[in-house]
């Protein structure tokens, strides 16, 4: 095996990470009226929140109150702080670019920001883990309209 699976973070595995970025883009890039609303940075923020159970818990608590976050199980991940690193930002951007190259997404420049547009929908949810990811994404949908610094604060746990 070429990978040391003991220390391998499966959340950043190539295909699963691409799939997550695709699904986020598909579910959240446009509002009900079809207007693009998801910036590349916001997409990265949301991806991080979904990956990190603690941040996700905080987000749920922020959006829907304590009760909604009660049943989210604790995990042993400790990745708070990694987010601030510059390469992570670029890392996510490369994922979006790879999806663009495959013709799945398109990055649309609008005013000062670059918005994500999903061209091809991902395969429909047929498994439990797909639906789980989908429901996670939908549960933090409210963050799309929040400003990026607000979401940053949420991620940092401040």
């Amino acid at each position: 095996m070429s990978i040391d699976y003991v220390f391998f973070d499966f959340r950043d595995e190539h295909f699963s990470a691409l799939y997550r970025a695709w699904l986020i883009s598909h579910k959240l890039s446009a509002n009900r009226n079809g207007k693009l609303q998801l910036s590349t940075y916001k997409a990265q923020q949301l991806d991080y929140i979904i990956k990190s159970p603690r941040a996700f818990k905080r987000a749920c608590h922020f959006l829907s109150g304590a009760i909604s976050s009660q049943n989210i199980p604790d995990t042993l991940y400790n990745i708070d702080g990694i987010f601030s690193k510059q390469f992570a930002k670029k890392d996510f951007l490369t994922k979006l670019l790879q999806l663009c190259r495959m013709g799945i997404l398109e990055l649309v420049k609008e005013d000062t920001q670059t918005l994500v547009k999903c061209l091809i929908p991902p395969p429909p949810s047929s498994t439990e883990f797909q639906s789980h990811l989908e429901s996670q994404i939908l549960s933090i949908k409210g963050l799309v309209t929040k400003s990026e610094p607000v979401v940053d604060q949420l991620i940092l746990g401040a």
Partner: protein
Amino acid sequence: MDSKPSLIISELILMGVTGTYNASFRSGLNIIRGSMDSGKSTILHMINYCLGGSNKKILYDEVTSKVRSIFLEVKLNGRTFTLERPLREQNSAVKVYSSDFANRGEVFPQFMSADPSGKMPDGWLSDFILEQLGIARVKIKESANRVDADEDRLSFRDLMKLMFLKQTDVGSDALLDFKSQAVFHKNVAVQKFVYNIHDERLAGLQTQRKLENEILKQLKQSESTLAKFLTEVGIPLDEFAFGDKIDAAKSQIHELDSATQKLKSDFEFNSKAALELRATISALRGELDSKSSQIKVAKKRIEDFAKLKSTYRIELDNIQLSKLARPFLANTPQDKTIACPLCSTELEIASQAIPEEDINAVERSVKNKIAGLDQSIKISMERIDVLQVEFSSTEKLIQQHTQIFDANNLSSISPLISLIETAEKAKVQAHIELSSLKKNLSIFRKYSETQDKINSKLTVISNLDQVIRNVESGLTGVDDIIAELRKIFAAYITLSGVQNVHSISYSKQFVPSFRNISYYDHLSGGVRTVMSIGMYMTRLAYALKHVCNIPPFLMIDTPGQNIGRKKNPDDDNTVSDPAIYETIYSQLLSIVDLANETGQECQIIVVDNDFPDILATAPGEKKYHLVKRFQKNNPTYEKGLIHDA
């Protein structure tokens, strides 16, 4: 109310620094025998000292180094008294307890002086003894011839001279102070009183009668005052009531003692049980704590397992997403970098893909881990279940034990403590009651002493009345009494074994003669010995036969003086010296027989270094009481009076 005086010594006790020495006596013949210098005579002199005599003869080293006080338990007209005198201090008070030696602590003693000029709260010892013997304290003229002769009051010491034949007096030509005419005449006067010869003394007797009556009146008055006082302060005038109450208090104290003892042992038992119970409870609590922390640990482990499981779950989700996404993203660019249209730079593609050939194995591995965790969580939960069951059963046990402990405490220990407290309080109360009763009893006894004095005084008065009656009616003449004394003495001297007994007479000075030679004029020491003992025995026999003013009591120190004790083979057995010696004892025994026949108590105490065959071979019942036998170099007997000197 003709009562004869009686004096019986019961016990002599020497109280010393390191111990006590005692000698017991009985009525009848008492013998003290032993080697020379062993303290035999000391016993007689100590008796004499307690009865008011001098301590001159008893103050020698062995005694003074060991003895502090001398006690004499004596019966005077049937009533028991204990006289206490310090050995050295002749002038100190003689303490008189109206009880036996053992119970002297229960009574207040009377303090008396041994000497007529001494000042003590309860007067002169001699007066007390005479009073108790029922003998009137008459005045004795010191000279029979001079009309203006001084008169002196009769003292018990005067009577003692007639009852104690000292070693130096046996056979002495100075017997009864013959060499000092004034004292000799007084002794004669005393003997006249003893034999109730009251020639020209009627007036004196009547004066005495009046005086005694006056004293009686005073005594009665003080008795009624005392009785009134005692009634007012609530002290019962009945000794039996005291006895019962004291017995009741003592038995109450005894009962309370055993009750508290039992309560205390119950308490000890209960508190021991309680302690054990408490130890059990605390052990159980410790167990409970340990269970609780085990449960906590197990819960924490489950929590950790759950976290790990969620983490693996996320990993598995991602692996499965990766598997799912692969066909749709199969044409992912394989380049190492990708051009960024936004920043116009080449971005490095950092993400790693699980190789196709690994993905199933990785998925299985994670699934296995999750399954393993599930198993661990299950085991831990089961462990928690078990622990929780144990926890609640321990909790239940604690509850039960605590209930028992509380119940035990409530039902036994607390009431026990209060019972013990109550019992102890009652005991203190009973002790207070007892000591107050004892105090009251002592006060009461003081009161009853007054009653006794009244009774003695009544005896004295009645005896005086008798004497006065006799004198008035001229019933008992001097000649009759002298004749009776002569008769007794004649019988004695005839039986004594002395040869040529004839022409026996008794002078009006109470001096016997035979062969027409008076006692004082006989040359033979042996004859004087026999006669002197005869004079004392005559008096004793007379006292047993007639009413007179002396108790039937006699102490003789070494009666065998001047009489040869060694038998010669050619001796005539009936007239030899040893036979005379034996006869002295046989005559002493006849006097004891006479007392027994007339139903009277008499006491003869003889000290001797020899021992007559008649006592050693006395058939049947023992005829004498051996008070002491001192013998040096024989461990069976004490070596002397102070046996550890």
